[in-house]
């Protein structure tokens, strides 16, 4: 998806409900109010002392206005939100690679005090999707949600705008695993440099998939931002069969890196799809490694979470 069509699709949501209305699991109640006040350091007695509330002109205990959103919050689940609790407008961004999310600001307006017994319903409405912004966290779009809060008789009791930034995370570079002793691994396996152009390739490997860029059926490796033939900045990603032929090879003797076994064969494989790839060979006597030998890809976890392709002789 291009960034333009992403934005157009996201903006189709503006003015529409981002999700189903959520009704509070519990009515407004004094125990929850008391806990919240303790946690927040709130000492105003009108929130937990009947007589203090009446002295202040209320019919009885009232809930702190800032608790507006508390009543309809989704349940806490260790595994995160369910699909129903997610918002399709935000999912669009996730699918386009804007996987990062951070709440940036919120604003609440109150129509009346909530009192014990009120049953609150909130409805999120997509208010705005910004143009692309370049932030310190990464490139992204601000999505503003407007929550309408109503009581059991459908009267509005408050409103909240809540803004999140959906962003493409700045590319975190893989770090070497710590040793069992807890210190930094003195001889980590050499790491790739991950850029916007090749992140899909290395992500594919971490999922044990060998992926190549493809434009109009032309495959290419190593990855680059532009298809050299058409000039297109768009590309598809296709998974390789992993089958190929050794096009050339070397056997490394020097220099020797910790963690590698020498003599170390390194092969240049021409895959069935026509692209070439450099990798090591698994479980092979270096003498068996020859130009023209058929090979198949496998994947090796050289360090926890760090997966590289390797070939086996067919």
């Amino acid at each position, binding site marked *: 998806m291009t960034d333009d069509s992403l934005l157009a699709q996201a903006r189709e949501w503006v003015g529409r409900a981002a999700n189903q209305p959520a009704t509070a699991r519990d009515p407004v109640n004094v125990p929850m109010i008391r806990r919240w006040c303790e946690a927040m350091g709130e000492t105003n007695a009108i929130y937990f002392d009947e007589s203090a509330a009446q002295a202040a002109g209320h019919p009885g205990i009232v809930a702190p206005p800032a608790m507006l959103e508390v009543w309809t919050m989704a349940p806490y689940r260790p595994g995160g939100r369910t699909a129903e609790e997610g918002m399709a407008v935000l999912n669009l961004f996730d699918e386009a690679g804007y996987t990062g999310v951070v709440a940036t600001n919120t604003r609440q307006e109150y129509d009346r005090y909530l009192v014990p017994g009120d049953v609150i319903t909130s409805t999120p409405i997509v208010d705005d999707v910004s143009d692309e912004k370049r932030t310190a966290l990464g490139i992204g779009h601000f999505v503003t949600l407007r929550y309408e809060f109503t009581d059991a008789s459908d009267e509005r009791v408050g409103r909240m705008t809540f803004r999140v930034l959906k962003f493409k995370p700045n*590319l975190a*570079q893989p770090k070497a695993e710590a040793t069992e002793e807890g210190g930094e691994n003195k001889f980590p*396996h*050499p*790491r*790739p*440099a*991950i*850029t916007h*152009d*090749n992140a899909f390739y*290395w992500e594919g490997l971490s999922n044990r998939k060998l992926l190549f860029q493809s434009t109009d059926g032309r495959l*290419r*490796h*190593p990855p680059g931002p532009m298809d050299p033939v058409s000039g297109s900045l768009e590309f598809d990603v296709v998974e390789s069969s992993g089958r190929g032929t050794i*096009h*050339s*090879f*070397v*056997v*490394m*003797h*020097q*220099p020797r*890196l910790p963690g*590698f076994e020498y*003599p*170390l064969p*390194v092969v*240049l494989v021409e895959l069935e799809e026509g*692209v*070439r*790839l*450099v*990798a*090591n060979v698994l479980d092979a006597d270096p003498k068996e490694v020859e*130009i023209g030998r058929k090979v198949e890809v496998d994947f090796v976890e*050289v360090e926890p979470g760090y997966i*590289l392709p390797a070939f086996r002789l067919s």
Partner: protein
Amino acid sequence: MSGTLSGKAAIVGIGATEFSKNSGRSELRLAVEAITTALEDAGIDREEVDGLSTFTMDNNPEIEVFRNIGGKSLKFFSRVHYGGGAACAPIMQAAMAVATGVAEVVVCYRAMNERSQYRFGSGYTPPPVPNAESAHYGYYVPFGLLSPASWVAMAAQRYMYESGATSEDFGRVSVACRRHAANNPNAWFYEQPITLEEHQQSRWIVEPLHLLDCCQESDGAQAIVVTSAERAKKLRQPPAIIRAAAQGAADDQQMMTSYYREDITRLSEMDLVAEQLYAQAGVKAADIRTATLYDHFTPYVLTQLEAFGFAPKGQAKEFVREGNLEIGGRLPVNTNGGQLGEAYIHGMNGIAEGVRQVRGTSVNQVPGDGPVLVTAGTGVPTSGLILGPA
């Protein structure tokens, strides 16, 4: 076509430090020593220098060099990328600057404690922030393919497979260079020739490359002074006219790992340089008297012989077997000993040898006054020169 650059500029001074494994002094000092020597050779005052050119991997900033040599007005400075592949490119830059009147005296330099401080052969270390260059190395280094020798060996293996060239054919390059170095008092391997048997018995670095297929690692500096052909007539030394200068990158070029072009056994970038050099100078392979062919690793000397038309594609092995690279052969190469025998000064010392062949002062002088070919690093974006007498 006769290019307008041809014949406009000349190399009028060469100067070098000693070539060693540990210079014991700063690279900047090596640079200014070599430059001073080269200017004295040319008979040009330091104050007259108004242009400087070098290539990446040299660590000496132009302005530091310029301040130290007492320069007054620096009007032209450039630094060409890709290390040894750029070796001839500063001369091209200098010639262009001189030909267009941008500068009058341009000094090209390369000064490095490559052996005592860096050792390219010890492997690639990525920079802290990822970019397109460090991303490139990510396709090789995690598999242990991390040294220049290993990157060249991959292409060499395929070359052997397709052409029938053997390790001994590579060895013949090394033997010729060491034989030439043996006559050169400035060469690290002065009076230390090798035999083909010694080449074959030397340990593996990266199969199919033996130790003696790999150039040295050296400390040292080389400087080259370029000015106009007109002014060159009035100077101390017989000028080496720059008859052609060219750069080349082509055919899905990568930095040392052009493994994705259809034919990885050819140096398409050197094919491009050869075509331009011959056209500019108006000469052909048969006219070339001697050559300094970049010899960081022996296999690419064979490929260069093919790129320049000294042998048909895949047949350089016959040319080499006939002894043509040695003194008395059809094309004596690297008469200073090359980087295998003299020193690894990133090809800049090879240019100086080309100048000596034009002047008639090489320790292994090749008779005649025909044009001299000089090439730069192979497997990378590259460059080349054809030099000749006035």
